């Protein structure tokens, strides 16, 4: 059993980075994630593991520092909150195009614009559909507890290096600021130069040895045929992610007639909603996507066969609902999919979710059969 601590989500992200052998962190302050860099600076990991921590002049610079460091084969990360991630969109697109592994953390706040500093899940589209220009995807992990904040740092790096692709931890101000018991991972040493050479020497700018071609980290290709081939390779990679690295959790779905679908903070709310609904005699279950990309389509396909309805519970105007609808459509079903959400930094209450379920599926609940449109 690892070391047990009571810690804030943001602090755990920093601690987990040090412990998993991260080589560098580049960031810029923004509420509600500033504790990530503050914790790192206070911990001074450069004395302990040799990890570099640098406060950049902007999110634009941070993500490009990540690009440079990742391009040299190192394990590097950045963190920010919604408006900062928008600024990073250019860099993330370049990182995806140049096929560099790195970890990006978005501790979401309400938008659009400067919005608010309270928690939100309104960056779902930005995270899972690309966000920057061009056809690309990130692996998106959605932790629902401080423990998962710890676990997903190492997992994020593992997946990023497996696919040579940026990975994102998409969380929000609630989990970032929340204190919970966490079992910290054991310390893992940083990779040595020799290990990096073996792992990434084929593409990383580790210095051109006389006996090999130079490595060029770039997303540029002027030949359209070659650029299309690059894109096809990326798509193949995203497909492989869908096949091999889709993660989700099902809670009381076995006999469920109504499925709540929620991730992160809203999935914690929904766990309570399931209890309340069950006490009322409604057979409700919860599907919690852990990876938002790849999205657990197959789980939805399967649940769509017997469920009377899906309720997508999000702290947004309804973004993930589109992916649920697509998965239901792909399963050849016409199970009804509805949305309930709060915006602007408000977290829905478990009771509100149950009320919304009863209201939106009142036909099915009253007559006991599916209602088709």
């Amino acid at each position, binding site marked *: 059993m690892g070391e047990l601590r009571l810690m804030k989500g943001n602090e755990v992200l920093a601690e987990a980075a040090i412990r998993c052998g991260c080589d560098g962190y580049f960031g810029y302050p923004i509420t509600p994630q500033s504790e990530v860099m503050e914790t790192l600076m206070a911990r001074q990991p450069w004395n302990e593991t040799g990890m570099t921590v640098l406060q950049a002049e902007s999110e634009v610079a941070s993500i490009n520092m990540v*690009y440079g460091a990742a391009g040299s084969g190192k394990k590097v990360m950045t963190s920010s909150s919604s408006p900062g991630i928008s600024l990073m969109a250019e860099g993330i697109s370049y990182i995806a195009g140049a096929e560099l592994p790195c970890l990006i953390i978005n501790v979401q706040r309400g938008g659009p614009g400067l919005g608010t500093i309270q928690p939100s899940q309104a960056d779902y589209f930005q995270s899972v559909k690309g966000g920057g220009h061009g056809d690309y995807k990130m692996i998106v992990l959605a932790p629902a507890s401080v423990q998962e904040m710890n676990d997903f740092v190492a997992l994020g790096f593992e997946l990023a290096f497996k696919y040579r692709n940026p990975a994102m931890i998409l969380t929000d101000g609630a989990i970032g600021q929340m204190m919970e018991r966490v079992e910290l991972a054991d310390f893992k040493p940083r990779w040595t130069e020799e290990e990096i050479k073996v792992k990434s020497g084929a593409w990383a700018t580790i210095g*051109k040895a006389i006996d090999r071609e130079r490595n060029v980290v770039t997303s540029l290709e002027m030949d359209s045929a070659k650029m299309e081939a690059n894109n096809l390779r990326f798509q193949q990679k995203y497909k492989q992610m869908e096949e091999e690295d889709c993660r989700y959790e099902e809670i009381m779905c076995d006999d469920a007639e109504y499925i709540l679908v929620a991730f992160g903070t809203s999935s914690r709310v929904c766990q309570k909603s399931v209890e309340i609904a069950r006490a009322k005699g409604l057979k409700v279950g919860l599907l919690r996507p852990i990876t938002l990309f790849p999205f657990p389509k197959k789980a939805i396909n399967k649940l769509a066969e017997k469920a009377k309805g899906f309720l997508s519970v999000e702290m947004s105007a309804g973004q993930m609902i589109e992916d649920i609808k697509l998965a239901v459509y792909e399963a050849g079903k016409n199970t009804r999919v509805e949305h309930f959400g709060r915006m602007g930094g408000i977290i829905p209450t478990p009771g509100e979710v149950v009320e919304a379920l009863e209201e939106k599926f009142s036909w099915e609940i009253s007559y006991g059969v599916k209602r088709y449109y």
Partner: protein
Amino acid sequence: MELKDIIKPENLVYDKSEVQTDTIMHYCPGCSHGVVHKVIAELIGELGIQEKTVGIAPVGCAVFAYNYIDVDWQEAAHGRAPAVATGVARLNPDKFVFTYQGDGDLASIGSGEIMHACNRGENILVVFINNGIYGMTGGQMAPTTLDGMVTSTTPFGRNADLNGYPMKITELIAQLPGTSYVTRQAVHNAASVRKCKRAIKKGIQNVLDKKGTSFIEVVSTCNSGWKMTPVAANKWMEDNMFPFYPLGDLKDGVKGEPVSKN
């Protein structure tokens, strides 16, 4: 003496550096980029640092710099080369990291990144090509375009009321304490190329000695953008660019010194 008696390996006095690739450069005839590329390749070879060099290419005409100098390269987003270089240099302190940027890249879209990298005193060399124009996109106004100069977006000449003033970014950089060496050079004739080479060599040596940022502006021509022959462009540069962008060292000191000599 017959030519064949002179052209023998033992009489060779000037040849392409082995660090430069055989690829024919995509630059227009007479472009200053080629000369600066060549000088950098020669120095990397002469100093024996090919295996520890990482170049950061810009967006602009020099985007393909990685095709010509045989070292590991990263191609940065427009203006972000100093941030990318920071990432490489901070995590690989034993590497020689340099950026190669044009005036649009460095002085316009990337003005924030260059200021802060120089202010932090990142241990990198910055080679800054200033030809007063955006070459790659077709000759638009750059921050360094001279007052009255005609470009495709200032067809009646740059007008300060409409377009602002030409920017002496190197003078601004020289004020930053993170820099150790800030200079302005040119490559329009053999003497200036030799001088520029000495300056770049000093910049590289500073990085190897971990002295902070070295910043080398090369006042250059863009004869296609300026719509002149290469030889006429060199002359025009001497007559018009040099008075506004005077050649010479602006700071030659140590990191941490707040003010330049000027």
